[in-house]
C-alpha cells in the first residue's frame, strides 16, 4: 500500500480524487510511524530510578557557599 498504487481515479484533480490521495498519504504516514516504533531498541541495562535522590549533585556542590550564608542569616531556623 503506497502512493504507487494510485489509480487513475485517484489522480483526478477533482476534490474527490484529492481526498482519496490525502487518505492514502495519511495511511502511508501511519505505516511509517509504526515501522519507526518497531525499530526503537530497548536499553541494555534497565534505567535506575533512585527515589532518594532526584537532585543533581553538581548543583548541590555549587550551592554550598549559598547554603552556609543561608544558615548564618537565619539564626534559630538552622
Amino acid at each position: 500500500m503506497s502512493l504507487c498504487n494510485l489509480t487513475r481515479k485517484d489522480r483526478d484533480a477533482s476534490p474527490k480524487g484529492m481526498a482519496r490521495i490525502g487518505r492514502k498519504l495519511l495511511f502511508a504516514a501511519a505505516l511509517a510511524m509504526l515501522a519507526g516504533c518497531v525499530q526503537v531498541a530497548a536499553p541494555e541495562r534497565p534505567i535506575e530510578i533512585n527515589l532518594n535522590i532526584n537532585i543533581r549533585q553538581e548543583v548541590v556542590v555549587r550551592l554550598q557557599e549559598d547554603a552556609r550564608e543561608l544558615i548564618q542569616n537565619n539564626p534559630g531556623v538552622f
Partner: protein
Amino acid sequence: MNRRKTLMIAAGLGIAALASSAAYAYVQGDAAGQLRASGVVGEQADGYLGLVGSASAAIRAQMDSVNIQRRAAYTQLATQRGATIEEVAAATACQIFASRIGPGQYYRLPDGVWRQRNGNEPVPRPSHCG
C-alpha cells in the same frame, strides 16, 4: 572626680548586663538548636528536622514551624539560583551535618536510620554532598 568614675563604671556595667541579657534572649530564640538538644528531634539529610521518636504536640508544632521557615528560605534561594527546592535543601543539609549537630544529638541519612552523634566524632555527610 572619683564619683564620676564610679558612675561611669556603673553605666558600663549596666550596658554589659543589657548586652548579656540580649545574648541570652538570642540563645532562647534558637528554636532549631533547642529542638535538636531535646533529643526527640533530629536533622535529616533532606534539609529538614524530623521526629526521632514520639513527641508532645508542642514539640511537633515547633518542629513544623521551623521546617516551614526552612522551606521558605530554601524556596527563595532556589529561585535566585535556578535550582530546585530539593537541591537547595540537600545542599544546606550538607552544611547542617558538618556544623550544627552537637554531641549526643540525632541525625538521619538517606538510609532512614536515626543515629546519635557519639561525643565529638564527626557526623558522616550525606553522599550527595560530594
